Protein backbone atom coordinates (compact mmCIF):
# COMPACT_ATOMS: atom_id res chain seq x y z
CA UNK A 1 0.00 0.00 0.00
CA UNK A 2 1.44 3.37 -1.04
CA UNK A 3 2.39 5.63 1.84
CA UNK A 4 0.77 8.69 0.27
CA UNK A 5 -2.48 6.80 -0.30
CA UNK A 6 -2.52 5.77 3.35
CA UNK A 7 -1.73 9.30 4.48
CA UNK A 8 -4.54 10.79 2.39
CA UNK A 9 -7.05 8.26 3.73
CA UNK A 10 -5.93 9.00 7.27
CA UNK A 11 -6.31 12.75 6.78
CA UNK A 12 -9.80 12.32 5.32
CA UNK A 13 -10.68 10.04 8.20
CA UNK A 14 -9.43 12.48 10.84
CA UNK A 15 -11.44 15.32 9.26
CA UNK A 16 -14.60 13.24 9.25
CA UNK A 17 -14.22 12.05 12.83
CA UNK A 18 -13.36 15.39 14.42
CA UNK A 19 -15.76 17.52 12.39
CA UNK A 20 -18.75 15.15 12.18
CA UNK A 21 -18.68 13.51 15.57
CA UNK A 22 -16.97 16.08 17.79
CA UNK A 23 -17.83 19.29 15.91
CA UNK A 24 -14.17 20.35 16.01
CA UNK A 25 -12.93 22.22 12.94
CA UNK A 26 -9.28 21.60 12.05
CA UNK A 27 -6.39 22.54 9.78
CA UNK A 28 -3.57 20.17 8.93
CA UNK A 29 -0.03 21.32 9.71
CA UNK A 30 3.32 20.14 8.40
CA UNK A 31 5.12 18.86 11.48
CA UNK A 32 7.23 15.77 10.85
CA UNK A 33 7.22 14.22 14.31
CA UNK A 34 5.52 14.60 17.69
CA UNK A 35 8.78 16.03 19.11
CA UNK A 36 8.23 19.14 16.98
CA UNK A 37 4.93 19.68 18.80
CA UNK A 38 5.53 18.56 22.38
CA UNK A 39 8.34 17.89 24.86
CA UNK A 40 8.30 14.50 26.65
CA UNK A 41 8.23 14.95 30.39
CA UNK A 42 7.00 18.52 30.04
CA UNK A 43 3.80 18.27 28.05
CA UNK A 44 1.07 15.90 29.17
CA UNK A 45 0.10 14.09 26.00
CA UNK A 46 -2.23 11.08 25.86
CA UNK A 47 -0.74 8.53 23.49
CA UNK A 48 -3.02 5.75 22.29
CA UNK A 49 -1.76 2.74 20.34
CA UNK A 50 -4.12 0.54 18.34
CA UNK A 51 -2.79 -2.57 16.60
CA UNK A 52 -4.45 -3.86 13.47
CA UNK A 53 -4.23 -6.88 11.18
CA UNK A 54 -5.56 -7.25 7.69
CA UNK A 55 -4.26 -7.09 4.12
CA UNK A 56 -1.44 -5.20 5.82
CA UNK A 57 -0.77 -4.89 9.54
CA UNK A 58 0.66 -2.39 11.96
CA UNK A 59 -0.23 0.16 14.61
CA UNK A 60 -2.14 3.43 14.60
CA UNK A 61 -0.86 5.89 17.20
CA UNK A 62 -2.61 9.08 18.31
CA UNK A 63 -1.17 12.02 20.26
CA UNK A 64 -3.81 14.12 22.02
CA UNK A 65 -2.85 16.53 24.81
CA UNK A 66 -4.70 15.59 27.98
CA UNK A 67 -6.09 19.11 28.29
CA UNK A 68 -7.72 18.80 24.84
CA UNK A 69 -9.19 15.39 25.57
CA UNK A 70 -10.66 16.59 28.87
CA UNK A 71 -12.09 19.66 27.15
CA UNK A 72 -13.79 17.48 24.54
CA UNK A 73 -15.18 15.17 27.22
CA UNK A 74 -16.38 18.15 29.24
CA UNK A 75 -18.23 19.60 26.22
CA UNK A 76 -20.24 16.43 25.82
CA UNK A 77 -20.77 15.80 29.49
CA UNK A 78 -21.86 19.38 30.06
CA UNK A 79 -19.28 19.81 32.81
CA UNK A 80 -16.34 22.03 33.62
CA UNK A 81 -13.16 20.56 32.10
CA UNK A 82 -11.38 20.94 35.44
CA UNK A 83 -13.95 18.63 37.08
CA UNK A 84 -13.86 15.85 34.47
CA UNK A 85 -12.04 12.73 35.72
CA UNK A 86 -8.83 11.88 33.87
CA UNK A 87 -10.38 8.54 32.90
CA UNK A 88 -12.94 10.28 30.69
CA UNK A 89 -10.20 12.12 28.83
CA UNK A 90 -8.47 8.79 28.19
CA UNK A 91 -11.72 7.22 26.99
CA UNK A 92 -12.29 10.05 24.52
CA UNK A 93 -8.70 9.73 23.23
CA UNK A 94 -9.13 5.98 22.79
CA UNK A 95 -12.46 6.38 21.03
CA UNK A 96 -11.09 9.01 18.65
CA UNK A 97 -8.20 6.68 17.81
CA UNK A 98 -10.63 3.79 17.29
CA UNK A 99 -12.84 5.86 14.98
CA UNK A 100 -9.95 7.31 12.98
CA UNK A 101 -8.52 3.82 12.48
CA UNK A 102 -11.76 2.13 11.42
CA UNK A 103 -12.71 5.01 9.18
CA UNK A 104 -9.27 5.07 7.52
CA UNK A 105 -9.54 1.41 6.55
CA UNK A 106 -13.10 1.88 5.32
CA UNK A 107 -11.95 4.72 3.07
CA UNK A 108 -9.03 2.64 1.82
CA UNK A 109 -10.85 -0.61 1.17
CA UNK A 110 -14.35 -1.37 2.45
CA UNK A 111 -14.24 -4.89 1.04
CA UNK A 112 -11.29 -6.10 3.09
CA UNK A 113 -11.47 -7.08 6.74
CA UNK A 114 -9.19 -5.29 9.18
CA UNK A 115 -9.17 -6.55 12.77
CA UNK A 116 -8.63 -3.74 15.23
CA UNK A 117 -7.24 -4.48 18.67
CA UNK A 118 -8.41 -2.72 21.81
CA UNK A 119 -6.76 0.71 22.04
CA UNK A 120 -4.02 0.94 24.70
CA UNK A 121 -2.64 4.01 26.39
CA UNK A 122 1.11 4.33 26.05
CA UNK A 123 3.82 6.65 27.28
CA UNK A 124 4.78 9.61 25.16
CA UNK A 125 8.44 8.66 25.57
CA UNK A 126 7.83 5.10 24.35
CA UNK A 127 5.67 5.84 21.33
CA UNK A 128 7.67 8.83 20.15
CA UNK A 129 11.02 7.24 20.90
CA UNK A 130 13.72 6.46 18.36
CA UNK A 131 12.00 3.08 17.92
CA UNK A 132 9.74 4.96 15.54
CA UNK A 133 11.42 6.91 12.77
CA UNK A 134 8.58 9.26 11.97
CA UNK A 135 10.32 10.50 8.84
CA UNK A 136 9.80 7.05 7.32
CA UNK A 137 6.36 6.39 8.82
CA UNK A 138 3.04 8.11 8.26
CA UNK A 139 2.60 11.16 10.49
CA UNK A 140 -0.25 13.66 10.33
CA UNK A 141 -0.36 16.76 12.54
CA UNK A 142 -3.21 19.19 12.89
CA UNK A 143 -4.40 22.30 14.69
CA UNK A 144 -7.85 22.63 16.21
CA UNK A 145 -9.56 25.17 18.44
CA UNK A 146 -8.65 22.80 21.29
CA UNK A 147 -4.95 22.75 20.37
CA UNK A 148 -2.62 20.47 18.41
CA UNK A 149 -3.13 16.78 17.80
CA UNK A 150 -1.31 14.19 15.74
CA UNK A 151 -1.85 10.72 14.35
CA UNK A 152 0.66 8.22 13.03
CA UNK A 153 0.63 4.82 11.41
CA UNK A 154 3.47 2.30 11.57
CA UNK A 155 3.04 -0.42 8.94
CA UNK A 156 4.93 -3.69 9.46
Amino acid at each position, binding site marked *: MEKETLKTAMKDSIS*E*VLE*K*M*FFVPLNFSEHKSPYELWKPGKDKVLVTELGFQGPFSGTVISFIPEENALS*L*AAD*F*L*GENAKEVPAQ*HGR*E*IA*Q*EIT*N*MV*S*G*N*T*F*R*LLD*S*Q*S*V*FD*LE*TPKMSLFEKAAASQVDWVKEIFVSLQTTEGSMAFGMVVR
Partner: protein
Amino acid sequence: MGSGGTPGCNKKGRGCRNMAYNVLVVDDSLPMRSVIKKTVKASGFKVGRFFDASNGKEALHILGEEWLDLVLTDYNMPDMNGLELLTRMKKDEILKSIPVVVITTEGSQQRLNEFLEMGAAAYVRKPFTPEEIRTKLNAIMGETEHGKGNSEDGDEGLDF
Protein backbone atom coordinates in the same frame (compact mmCIF):
# COMPACT_ATOMS: atom_id res chain seq x y z
CA MET B 1 -41.65 -4.27 32.52
CA GLY B 2 -42.54 -0.60 32.93
CA SER B 3 -45.41 0.93 31.03
CA GLY B 4 -44.01 3.98 29.30
CA GLY B 5 -45.09 5.23 25.90
CA THR B 6 -48.17 7.18 24.98
CA PRO B 7 -51.55 6.11 26.38
CA GLY B 8 -53.70 4.53 23.69
CA CYS B 9 -50.69 3.30 21.73
CA ASN B 10 -50.03 -0.39 21.49
CA LYS B 11 -46.56 -1.78 21.99
CA LYS B 12 -45.48 -1.14 18.39
CA GLY B 13 -46.83 2.40 18.46
CA ARG B 14 -49.36 1.93 15.70
CA GLY B 15 -51.54 5.00 15.39
CA CYS B 16 -49.04 7.03 17.42
CA ARG B 17 -47.18 8.90 14.72
CA ASN B 18 -46.06 11.67 17.04
CA MET B 19 -44.88 9.56 19.95
CA ALA B 20 -41.45 10.11 21.36
CA TYR B 21 -39.22 7.08 21.72
CA ASN B 22 -37.44 5.72 24.76
CA VAL B 23 -33.90 4.96 23.67
CA LEU B 24 -31.33 2.78 25.42
CA VAL B 25 -27.71 3.74 24.66
CA VAL B 26 -25.20 0.98 25.39
CA ASP B 27 -21.48 1.82 25.42
CA ASP B 28 -18.75 1.16 27.99
CA SER B 29 -17.59 4.80 27.83
CA LEU B 30 -19.63 7.49 29.58
CA PRO B 31 -18.29 10.31 27.36
CA MET B 32 -19.16 8.30 24.25
CA ARG B 33 -22.68 7.68 25.47
CA SER B 34 -22.92 11.46 25.88
CA VAL B 35 -21.60 12.00 22.34
CA ILE B 36 -24.20 9.61 20.93
CA LYS B 37 -27.06 11.08 22.94
CA LYS B 38 -26.09 14.62 22.06
CA THR B 39 -25.91 13.76 18.34
CA VAL B 40 -29.26 11.94 18.41
CA LYS B 41 -30.83 14.86 20.27
CA ALA B 42 -29.34 17.38 17.83
CA SER B 43 -30.77 15.35 14.95
CA GLY B 44 -34.36 16.13 15.99
CA PHE B 45 -35.25 12.45 16.32
CA LYS B 46 -38.12 12.30 18.81
CA VAL B 47 -36.61 11.03 22.04
CA GLY B 48 -38.85 10.66 25.06
CA ARG B 49 -36.18 9.49 27.44
CA PHE B 50 -32.63 8.17 27.21
CA PHE B 51 -31.45 5.24 29.27
CA ASP B 52 -27.77 4.33 29.73
CA ALA B 53 -25.97 1.02 30.05
CA SER B 54 -22.23 0.36 30.04
CA ASN B 55 -22.43 -3.21 28.71
CA GLY B 56 -24.84 -5.86 27.46
CA LYS B 57 -25.58 -7.24 30.92
CA GLU B 58 -26.66 -3.87 32.25
CA ALA B 59 -28.68 -3.32 29.09
CA LEU B 60 -30.62 -6.55 29.61
CA HIS B 61 -31.35 -5.54 33.19
CA ILE B 62 -32.73 -2.17 32.07
CA LEU B 63 -34.72 -3.81 29.28
CA GLY B 64 -36.37 -5.99 31.91
CA GLU B 65 -37.34 -2.99 34.00
CA GLU B 66 -38.24 -0.20 31.58
CA TRP B 67 -40.25 0.33 28.40
CA LEU B 68 -37.75 0.82 25.56
CA ASP B 69 -38.50 1.44 21.91
CA LEU B 70 -35.00 1.34 20.47
CA VAL B 71 -31.51 0.18 21.42
CA LEU B 72 -28.32 1.82 20.14
CA THR B 73 -25.38 -0.36 21.06
CA ASP B 74 -21.64 -0.29 20.69
CA TYR B 75 -20.05 -3.53 19.51
CA ASN B 76 -16.92 -3.97 21.67
CA MET B 77 -17.74 -3.93 25.38
CA PRO B 78 -16.64 -5.96 28.40
CA ASP B 79 -19.12 -8.23 30.22
CA MET B 80 -21.23 -8.89 27.11
CA ASN B 81 -20.59 -7.20 23.79
CA GLY B 82 -23.15 -5.75 21.37
CA LEU B 83 -23.50 -8.90 19.32
CA GLU B 84 -24.16 -11.03 22.39
CA LEU B 85 -26.73 -8.52 23.58
CA LEU B 86 -28.42 -8.67 20.18
CA THR B 87 -28.44 -12.48 20.25
CA ARG B 88 -29.98 -12.56 23.74
CA MET B 89 -32.65 -10.04 22.77
CA LYS B 90 -33.58 -12.04 19.67
CA LYS B 91 -34.14 -15.12 21.81
CA ASP B 92 -36.53 -13.28 24.14
CA GLU B 93 -40.23 -13.23 23.22
CA ILE B 94 -40.71 -9.65 24.39
CA LEU B 95 -37.34 -8.11 23.60
CA LYS B 96 -37.00 -9.52 20.09
CA SER B 97 -39.33 -6.91 18.62
CA ILE B 98 -37.24 -3.97 19.87
CA PRO B 99 -35.05 -2.69 17.03
CA VAL B 100 -31.31 -2.81 17.75
CA VAL B 101 -28.92 -0.53 15.91
CA VAL B 102 -25.23 -1.43 16.16
CA ILE B 103 -22.98 1.63 16.31
CA THR B 104 -19.55 0.62 15.15
CA THR B 105 -16.18 1.66 13.75
CA GLU B 106 -16.14 -1.51 11.68
CA GLY B 107 -15.12 -0.71 8.11
CA SER B 108 -15.60 -4.03 6.36
CA GLN B 109 -18.87 -4.52 4.50
CA GLN B 110 -18.68 -8.24 5.18
CA ARG B 111 -18.62 -7.71 8.93
CA LEU B 112 -21.37 -5.11 8.75
CA ASN B 113 -23.60 -7.51 6.85
CA GLU B 114 -23.04 -10.04 9.63
CA PHE B 115 -24.70 -7.66 12.08
CA LEU B 116 -27.79 -7.60 9.89
CA GLU B 117 -27.76 -11.38 9.53
CA MET B 118 -27.69 -11.63 13.33
CA GLY B 119 -30.89 -9.58 13.48
CA ALA B 120 -29.77 -5.97 13.88
CA ALA B 121 -32.27 -3.51 12.40
CA ALA B 122 -29.35 -1.49 11.07
CA TYR B 123 -25.76 -0.52 11.68
CA VAL B 124 -24.40 2.99 11.99
CA ARG B 125 -20.77 3.64 11.18
CA LYS B 126 -18.91 6.09 13.38
CA PRO B 127 -18.48 8.95 12.67
CA PHE B 128 -22.04 9.99 11.83
CA THR B 129 -23.80 13.35 11.58
CA PRO B 130 -27.09 14.24 13.29
CA GLU B 131 -28.83 14.28 9.90
CA GLU B 132 -27.56 10.84 8.99
CA ILE B 133 -28.73 9.19 12.16
CA ARG B 134 -32.11 10.89 12.11
CA THR B 135 -32.84 9.59 8.61
CA LYS B 136 -32.02 6.04 9.58
CA LEU B 137 -33.74 6.03 12.97
CA ASN B 138 -36.93 7.54 11.51
CA ALA B 139 -36.91 4.88 8.80
CA ILE B 140 -36.46 2.11 11.37
CA MET B 141 -39.21 3.31 13.65
CA GLY B 142 -41.46 3.84 10.65
CA GLU B 143 -41.00 0.20 9.70
CA THR B 144 -41.81 -0.92 13.19
CA GLU B 145 -44.84 1.32 13.37
CA HIS B 146 -46.43 0.31 10.09
CA GLY B 147 -45.16 -3.21 9.75
CA LYS B 148 -44.01 -2.58 6.19
CA GLY B 149 -40.59 -2.52 4.64
CA ASN B 150 -39.16 0.86 3.86
CA SER B 151 -39.17 1.14 0.08
CA GLU B 152 -35.90 3.07 0.04
CA ASP B 153 -33.72 1.22 2.50
CA GLY B 154 -35.15 -1.98 3.83
CA ASP B 155 -32.97 -3.41 6.59
CA GLU B 156 -29.82 -1.70 5.51
CA GLY B 157 -26.99 -0.11 7.32
CA LEU B 158 -26.28 3.53 7.66
CA ASP B 159 -23.19 3.83 5.55
CA PHE B 160 -21.56 7.17 4.99
